[in-house]
């Protein structure tokens, strides 16, 4: 790891993870939630997909999570941009199965959380 301090994983939706976004940077800590579309045992790389967007997950550091295609998982890890074609892959440091999650609700809570944190920040600054 390049960074000495591990940052908390910022919850985002896959839709927000396009190359123009703030989060699309090397080494950013993220928390992503989406359905596992594919998984290769040899490479330990899985693909999650949500709302038409997908993201590769490197699961080599994950233990005790059985990965099943079609289930919904949440991963926390650092984003790694593979240079030649600017493709992102999340180096997952932990993950869990979150089957049964209401994705609509989850997206809304993310928005709400951000709004809350922002207000919190603002009020902190005023003080």
């Amino acid at each position, binding site marked *: 790891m390049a960074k000495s301090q591990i940052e908390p994983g910022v919850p985002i939706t896959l*839709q927000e993870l396009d190359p123009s976004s703030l989060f699309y940077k090397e080494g950013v800590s993220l928390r992503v939630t989406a359905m596992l579309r594919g998984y290769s045992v040899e490479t330990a790389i899985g693909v999650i997909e949500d*709302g*038409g967007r997908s993201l590769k997950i490197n699961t080599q550091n994950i233990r005790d999570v059985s990965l099943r295609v079609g289930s919904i998982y949440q991963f926390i890890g650092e984003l790694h941009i593979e240079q030649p074609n600017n493709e992102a892959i999340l180096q997952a440091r932990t993950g869990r199965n979150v089957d049964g999650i*209401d*994705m*609509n*609700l989850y997206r*809304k*809570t993310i928005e*709400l959380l951000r709004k809350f944190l922002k207000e919190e920040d603002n009020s902190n600054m005023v003080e």
Partner: protein
Amino acid sequence: MENATILTIVELVHKGRAVTGSSSLFFSDATPTPHSSSESRPGAVDSDSSRKFLTPLNHPAVIVGTLALPSETLKCPNRYCFRFSDGDLTICCDILRFEIRAIGTKICVLSWNFLPMKHSGGFLEIIKWKFVDTDNLVSRCSFPLIPSLYSPQNVDRKSRYSVFGVLESISPVSVVPCQEGVSSDSVNLPGFLVHVMACECKEYNRDAIDCGHAFEKSVFVYLCGSMAASWHPAITKLVGSNVAFSGLKKKLVYVRGDSLLVFVTTENSVLYPPWLSKKQIVLKAGVDRRGNCGSYLGFVRGLYMRGKLVEMDEDVWLLLTDQIHNRSHSIRTGSLIFIRNVHLVNTKFSWGEVLILGACFKTSITVESFSPFETSCLVDSCRQTSLSRFIESLSFPARFWTLLVRSCFQKFDGMPSDKEILRSCQKDELTKLYAESRIPPSMFQPRGGIFTEFCVHESCGCNSEAHDCNLKLVMPISSFVHHIKVMLNELLSQIKKDFSASDFLSDSPSTWKRYNHTNMKTFRSEDTSVILLGRLKISSSGRLQLHDRTSSIDVLAPDLDINASRICEVSDYSIIMEGIPESMFHMPFLQNPLRCRSVVNPTPLAIENTLTVRFSLSLGTASCKHVLEHHPLDWRHDLNEFKEGMFHLFRVTHKFPILRNGHPGMPDCTSAFIEALVLPWELICTVTEEDAAAAPYFEEHDNTSQEIRPHKRYKTNNELERQRALSVPHEISCQMTIRCANSHCLVTAATLSNLRENKSGNMHSTKRVLLEFIPECSNYYALQIGGCYLMKHGTDDSFCVGRSGISNNDKIGFRPETRLWSVEFSFDEVLTHDGSVDVYPLVSSQPSLAVEQRNDSSSQPCSDVSLLLPYDAKRLFSVFLKDLEELNKPLAAGNDNNNIACCTQSEKIMHAEPSRVPPSNSLFPEGNLATFRGDIVAVDAVTSSVVDVSSSYCINVLVNHQIVKIFGPLRRHSYLTGFGPGASATFYRILGTGEENRFVLTSASFVKINSRKALDGPQLEKPTHRAALCLPKITHQEYVPCILAGPGCNSFSENKDNQQIKFACKVLSVYLLVLQTRSDDSSEKECRNNIVIPLAGFVVDDGSSIYLCWTSGERAFTILRLHEELPEEAIDVAQWIRRDSSRGTTAYHLEQIVRVHKRIVMKCNGSQIDALFQDITIAVTSDQLLTKSEDKFLKWLILNAISGPIWEVATSSMDMKMIDHLEREQCVKMETSRHNLQSVWGNEVCQVDPLVRAWSLLQGLLNS
């Protein structure tokens, strides 16, 4: 006495007033004290103050005249009445303290009642009397039955027999046709039988009375001839005393093949009056029961149904149904009567127990004390109707029930006349038809003649009575309403009592109001066992009501055929009470026994209604039947309709609401429209006459559709294969089950034939048409969206008349007389495989019911016709029968995954797409139509305009955990009965607004109320499934265990304004649990469980802190998940054999253990946080040790509670005093201080759906 004036009968009759008079007493006008009848106890008769006492004469008066036996000269409908004559006029009379000597002699009536009567001027009740001339009386100790030939010397050898003994019983006068003398004309000879327990000694010796006579021989004497028959009233008075007859002849009578010796009176017969013997002084007890028959002494409280039904005491009813009875006029309301030889039939009806006094031919009634009230006299109606004949053929409980039904039909008098019914059959006829359809065959009994039943009484049908009777009470509506009101009021007073003692910890009265509009309690018809008869109408306020002459009641029934002229029978319903206080909500309703009095005499007492509780009936499936449809001719007629008929098949896809006048932007339109798909198939049916005649009779509600199908094959495999080869076969054989009049089923073969277009090819496609119903056409209400229907094909039927074929968008007018049958399809596998028959309906004709009705009744087939098709046809027909929502689905299925990700197709909800709808320039709102089902959460008034539709209301509907808002003018929809929060409704074709989860009701939208939520009530078998809806059930006893009338009560009063805190939590562990068996109080026995949990302590975590939550009763039940089904692995199967679902619950198994050990106290001594390593001690009060499996089960109970869902608990804090009190009360050491946890008392518990909670939280946050 000396001053008494002598009244003549002419004077009395002329005045025509009911009066009472006496020789000695003087009544001043100022203080009209009631009356002189010495023995009567008016207080015991009736508390009804409305009853009027007889007016006393204001001067002493006597009447002098002659008492005489009945004769032909006096025309009285009762025929065998005493006469009283003062020379000028003769009237009917009855007499107390009767002596035979008084007959034919002049008597002075000292104290009397006079009642005017139509037919003979009046009726005299002689209370006190004396002989005018006492000198001639001594010699008279024998009375010839035929006085004109009084010559005892002239003894015929044949008539030498005499009988003496105790007169046991007397029959009514009956008429025997016989030939008299030389003339061949047959003469109707009246006569009656008496039964005497006689002494076998040959000579009647008056002096040797008390020495050694043994009255053991049963003897019958027939008093024959009109002269002898006139002795009937006199001899009736002698029943129970000693009599003697002489001058009798012997005759052999054949009764049921056996010969019986009967003594018959002759011209020389003499009657000897009773003499006093020691044995004879019989005390007239209230009820004297000897075997099946007995005697009864009591006051008459009411006469109903022309005197056929006599109310005696509470729940004691005398039946005088036999036409032949000769009853005295003096059986009036208020009189004390003594009934001898009456059948005492204790009958358990489903609504309560009734003692029926069934009068038979042996029964005799004497009036012991005349009524002091001015009540009408009993007058026999000689008219014998078919109903009275029918009633006579029934057993006593059935007779009683039929009379109650008759009195209910009486309540339909004076209503908008139903010509159909009034013309063809009278109310009697209606009663008869209805009763015939309801009374099981076992309750009919063959009747013998009067001779048979009198002489061989024990062997005749009178003897075998059904004592349990599952006939349901038929009630007039006002009585029913009154009954509910009484029940509510009693409950309220109960609550008031409880509240005064327990304001703490229970709901404060302010919460009543807050939830008033949603608080509903329901109980089902099974609990009341009442059938209502009435007509349906729509009241001026737009509510559907069931009414009879007495009252009306609101009815919730979606899409019912409202034919205001027909009488409906409502048997399956729920009573919904809205707006009851929340605390009332948890209380079991006190089951008041229903009084039959309220049926025959529906004059409700004024009830002070302190509550504004609205109640209504919610009708169950097929619960509302037209009474006349039970007519046996009806079903045959029904089957005839199917005879060699061809039927159109169509499916209703949408119903357009009826547009009331004044709908904005719409012309006045009186027709109603239904959109339907006409299937390209025609049903050809071949019911033969023999089939119709042989249609078997099935018990009502019998689930017959599967059992009765003869599994015959109607196609060979070859044929089928040939059919399969074709893409669409021309004909499909099927089996048709026709249900008519709900008791008769007929299975027959039928053919489905494909309709051809222009003779060239198959008509592959269905045609979408618009059916128009004129207002008189009630079919509109009967048709259900999604249902399939049959209509008979004819030259002038609506589908064929005036057109060569049906094409899309045709408008087809329906006439009122058009008959439709609902049809359902099922597909049989036996025709293709050799396996067992596997019948399953693809679609029910009433899909809404099949889907939504979760109660038992939904399992019954509810369509008129079911078709069983070969399995191969399934593929073909599923096209037509697929989900209606699919058919109605607009094309705009969104590709926007983002938006519909959470809604699978099965959720039947479509979101109008937010971005795609372009801003429209059109005058009309645009959007996609949707159809979905949901629970109405709230209806708010709003004033906004959504998509150009001015909306006055916003309906919040919960659809799959999402709140959907529906806006609309709602003018029409708000009048739907049952519409409102708590209703489950289907919204058809509502318009998407472009915003997510927002819709608009249009004038084409149809709202159907499927059901109302039952929030509470015994029908909830698994409360946890509905835990989110149902509040905890607290019986009044367990409000809070600490509430006592003791000093401790006051110490809590400071907590009155204690705030309730609601939090969601999970159970971490069970700290303390006290289980015990329920007390033996009978009032609680009907509760489901016999376990009570007086105290339970749970360690709960709300995410931020840990509490010790104490609670009791149902709340503890809920948290322990006792109502849930026991998982397989939790029990040792060998030991706890599960048989049915009710036994599968945890509560059931726990009950087994608690029953053995009486009281179990489980306590956890270890860590509170980690449940798995708890040190649990279990103490029991019984002597028995806990078995290993019991121990295991109890520990599993704790684990089961811990693995429960998230609960929402409303709590209030507990102080030390309360904890102390609880400890003392339950004799347990709670040791709350040991763990440093805050103790709270859980008032309410309900399960939380985390998703619903999350969404509501989110909404709250977004709005804030």
